[in-house]
C-alpha cells in the first residue's frame, strides 16, 4: 500500500462561472441568510447525539501508539523501532501502557477522562489482507454473517431513521462511499464542503430536478438526495469559518476533514454521523521511533483530534468519536525497519459516554506462545462489542445486537460509562 498520505489541495481552486445569464449563488443572499461566519444559527444545545468515525486505512501500528512498555517481550521484539519506556520519553498512561510522545496533545483529554484507548481489539477473522479486513470490519460480516452486504453504520442509521431526516444526516468525507455506509439511507459523499455547490441558473436546477424525478435508478435516487443537500448547504459558507477556542487544525487531510466535520456539526444542518478516512498507515518500511514516519502521522492525528474536541467545545458532551483501523501490525519488526500485517491493534474513543482515562484491554501477552502465528497480537476484544455499545449510546437502545451484528455473542467491553445492552 501507499505510504505517503495524499497531499491536500494541490489542485487549482474551482473556476468561477461567469457565463452570461448564469451566476453562482449571489453573495447578498448568502450573507442575508447567514451573517459573516455562515453559521450564526447554531443551536446552543443540539438535542441529538452525534457520531464521528475516523478510519485509519492501512492498519495503524497499535503497539506504537499505545505502547505496552510493561511487557518485557515488547522490547525484545522491537529492538530497533521500539519506543522505550516513560524514562526515555514515552508518556505513561497507567504503569503498563504508554502513549507515543508525538501524540502528547491527547494526554490531557485522557487525564480529564474524556479519552480512552482500547487495545488488543480486532476481528475474529484471520485475514491479513487490508481489503478483506476492511470489507469484513466495515460490514461487521464475521463468522456466519459473511453474506451481510450493508455497512454496520448503515444498519444503525436505518434502524433509527426519523420520518423527515436531514439530507445531511450521514456524511462521508472522501470521494467514495465507504463500505461502513453501504446501504445507508441517502448518505452524502463529500470531498470538501467547497465542492457541494452548483453554479448555473435556478432554471437549470429545476430542469435537473425534473430529470431526476423521472426515474427510479440508483442515479435518480442519488441525484434527488444531492439536490436536497445542495439546498441545505446553501446555508453554509466554509470560507468564513473560524474554529472556536483558538483550536488550530493541522494542515493535512485528517485535519481539514475534521475541521469541516466540526463546521458541519456546529452549523446544525442535521448531520448526525460523519465518517472520515485517514490514509498512509501501512508502515512496512522505516516507520521510525519517537520521530520519523509514524511519529509524523501520530502528530497529525493527535493534533486533529485535539483541535476538533477543542473546537466543538460543549458539543463534545453530545458527540462521540471513534478512531478505528482494520487490524494491527506484526509485533516483531521486519528487515526494512517497518512492520508487516498483523492481527489485533489499538483504537481510540473520545467524548460523550466514554469511560475515559483508561486503556481498556485484556492483554494477551507477547511471548511466542501467546502470539498468533507468525508473530501477531491476539485479539481479545471483538470490535463488534464496542461498535454495538457505541451505536446504542449514540442512536439509542432500539438498536439490537441481532440487527446490528447478526451472530455476535455480545460481551460488555466496559469502554463506555454504562453498557446499555
Amino acid at each position, binding site marked *: 500500500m*501507499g505510504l505517503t498520505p495524499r497531499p491536500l489541495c494541490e489542485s487549482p481552486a474551482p*473556476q468561477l462561472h461567469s457565463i452570461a*445569464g448564469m451566476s453562482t449563488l449571489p453573495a447578498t443572499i448568502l450573507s442575508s441568510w447567514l451573517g459573516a461566519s455562515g453559521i450564526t444559527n447554531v443551536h446552543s444545545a443540539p438535542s441529538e447525539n452525534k457520531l464521528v468515525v475516523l478510519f485509519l486505512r492501512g492498519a495503524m501500528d497499535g503497539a506504537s501508539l499505545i505502547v505496552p512498555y510493561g511487557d518485557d517481550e515488547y522490547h525484545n521484539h522491537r529492538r530497533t523501532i521500539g519506543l522505550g519506556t516513560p524514562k526515555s520519553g514515552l508518556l505513561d498512561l497507567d504503569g503498563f501502557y504508554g502513549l507515543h510522545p508525538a501524540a502528547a496533545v491527547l494526554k490531557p483529554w485522557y487525564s480529564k477522562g474524556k479519552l480512552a484507548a482500547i487495545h488488543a481489539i480486532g476481528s475474529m477473522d484471520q485475514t491479513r*489482507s487490508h481489503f478483506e479486513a476492511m470489507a469484513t470490519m466495515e460490514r461487521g460480516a464475521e463468522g456466519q454473517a459473511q453474506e451481510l452486504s450493508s455497512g454496520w453504520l448503515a444498519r444503525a442509521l436505518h434502524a433509527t431513521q426519523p420520518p423527515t431526516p436531514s439530507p445531511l444526516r450521514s456524511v462521508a468525507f472522501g470521494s467514495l462511499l465507504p463500505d461502513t455506509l453501504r446501504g445507508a439511507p441517502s448518505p452524502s459523499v463529500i470531498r470538501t464542503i467547497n465542492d457541494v455547490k452548483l453554479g448555473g441558473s435556478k432554471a437549470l436546477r429545476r430542469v435537473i430536478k425534473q430529470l431526476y424525478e423521472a426515474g427510479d435508478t440508483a442515479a435518480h435516487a442519488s441525484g434527488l438526495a444531492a439536490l436536497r443537500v445542495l439546498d441545505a448547504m446553501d446555508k453554509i459558507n466554509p470560507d468564513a469559518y473560524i474554529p472556536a477556542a483558538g483550536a488550530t487544525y493541522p494542515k493535512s487531510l485528517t485535519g481539514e476533514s475534521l475541521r469541516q466535520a466540526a463546521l458541519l456539526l456546529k452549523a446544525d444542518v442535521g448531520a448526525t454521523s460523519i465518517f472520515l478516512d485517514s490514509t498512509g498507515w501501512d508502515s512496512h518500511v522505516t516507520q521510525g521511533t519517537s520521530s520519523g514516519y509514524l511519529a509524523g502521522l501520530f502528530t497529525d492525528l493527535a493534533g486533529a483530534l485535539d483541535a476538533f474536541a477543542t473546537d466543538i467545545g460543549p458539543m463534545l458532551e453530545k458527540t462521540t468519536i471513534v478512531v478505528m483501523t482494520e487490524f494491527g501490525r506484526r509485533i516483531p519488526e*521486519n*528487515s*526494512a525497519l517497518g512492520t508487516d*500485517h498483523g492481527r489485533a491493534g489499538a483504537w481510540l474513543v473520545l467524548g460523550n459516554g466514554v469511560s475515559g482515562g483508561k486503556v481498556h484491554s485484556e492483554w494477551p501477552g507477547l511471548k511466542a506462545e501467546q502470539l498468533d502465528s507468525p508473530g501477531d497480537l491476539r485479539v481479545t476484544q471483538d470490535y463488534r462489542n464496542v461498535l454495538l455499545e457505541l451505536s446504542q449510546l449514540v442512536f439509542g437502545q432500539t438498536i439490537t445486537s441481532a440487527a446490528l451484528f447478526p451472530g455476535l455473542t455480545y460481551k460488555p467491553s466496559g469502554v463506555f460509562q454504562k453498557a446499555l445492552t
Partner: protein
Amino acid sequence: MLDRRTLIVATAGLAAGCKPNRTSLDPRQNYLPDRTTKATDTDRRRTVHLLSRAAFGPTPALVEDVLSLGLDGWIERQLAAPNDVIGPATYLQPTETTGLHFRLNSLPCLRPGAIYELRDVSQPRVLSELSAATILRSTYSQWQLRERMCQFWTNHFNIYGRKVAAARGRKQADAELLYFLADDQRTVIRPHALGKFQTLIDASIKSPAMLGYLDNQLNKSGNVNENYARELLELHTLGVNGGYTQADVKNVAKVLSGWTIEDGFLKKVGSVIFDKTNHARGGKHVLGTIINETKGELERDKVVALVANHPSTARFISGKLVDFYCGHDSDTQTLKESIARVFQQSGGAMDKVLRHILLSDAFYASKPKFRQPFDYLIACLRATNADTSGIGNIQYQLERMGQPLHQWPMPDGYPDTTTAWVGNMIPRWQFALDLGSNSIQNTKLDNNAVKHLCRNRFTSASDAERLTAVLASPEFQWA
C-alpha cells in the same frame, strides 16, 4: 484538428421529446444516433452497447462504422490493434490519427528515455502529462478496445504515483515513483494490454515502479518484507479467495527477496536488479511446489509461471474482466465460468478472452453499468466532439469527481461498482455545466456536435444550459 472523418460529425444524439421516458429501462437508448444506414433496432442497440463498454462511448460515425463492419468485424479489427512497441520509434505513433499524434507529441515527459532528464521536471508536471496522455488516448484513439484494456490493467496493477520511494540512502532520497510511472505505462501496460497474462505479470514484476510501490527494494533475507508478495497473490493473480496461505505469502516474499532497484535510480533507467546477498536461500514451499534454485534469481520466474497459470488466477482475472465489461448488477456466473475455461486453455490470451466476452449473449443482456467519473468525463468529451489538450482544469474536474489518475493510494485500484460512485453526483453536474458553458481551459466544444446532441431538448433554455442538462441527466451516467 482531430481526424475529422471520425469526429467531426456530431455525436450520439437524443431521441426527440423533452421528457425522459419514465418506463425506459435502458437509458442509453435515448442516445442512439439518427438513422442513416439500414440496420435493425437490435443491431443498433447492440452496437451502442458494445461501444459504451468496449470503447469509451459511441459517436455517430463510429456507430455507422460498426454497423457496416458487423460487431464481430469491429471486434476483430480492434483486437488486431498495432502494438505499442517498446523503443523510440513508438513515440511517433503512425497508427494513430494526426490529431492524437500531434497532441501526444506536445507531452515531452512521455518520451522514451525522458526519465534521464526528469530530475529537473517538477512532479506535478510529470503527473499532469501522464494523465493528459490517458485522457487524450481514451478520447481520440481509434484503438478504443486497447485503451479500455490499458485502463483495466493500469487499475489492476495500480501504482500510487505520489508514494515516495523508500529511501535506501541519501542518493535515493529524492527518487520518486512518479518518474517511473511513464515507463511502467510504456513497457508494462501498453505493449501487453491485449497480450498474454503471463507476459504481463512478467513485465510488471520487473517494473521499478511496481517494485518501489510495494517496497520490494527493501525485501531482504532475515525478516522479509511481505508487501509485494501478498499483493502479487491477493490482487494481481490468485485473488483473495484463491486458496493461498500466510505461509505462501511468506515464501513468495523469500523468493522475491534481493530484487531491488539499481543504484543510480534516476541516472539509468532504474532497472530492477538482483542482489544475491539479500536473497533468502533454501527451499520455499509455494502453492504446493518447492522452489529452490542454485541461482536465486531464477526463482522469480518459477513463481511467475506458477501464479500466472494457477486455476484460481484464471477464475479471478476472468471474473474481474466480466465485471468490467458487464457490470456487477447482472447475472454473469455462467459467463464467468466459461471465460475462466477460455483463459486457462489459452494460457491467458486476452484476444481469445475478450472475443468470448464481447460476443456473448450475457454481455449484450447485461444491465446498464454506472459510469466511473473517468468514463463519464471521456463520454462527455466524445459526445461533444470536444477539442482538449488533456491538461489543466479538465484534470481537476476528474479529481473533484473522485478519480484523479494514478492517485488511488491502495494497490487494489479504483472500485468498479455503482455503489462506490453513485453518491457523488454534484461534481458531475458542475463538470457538465463547466463543459457546457465552454469554461474549461484548453477544452473547447464543437458547436455542431452540441447542436446535434441537444436537438429537440430543453428548447427554452440557453444553449449552454441545454447541453448541461443533457450531460447532467441521469441517462448519461450509465454505459
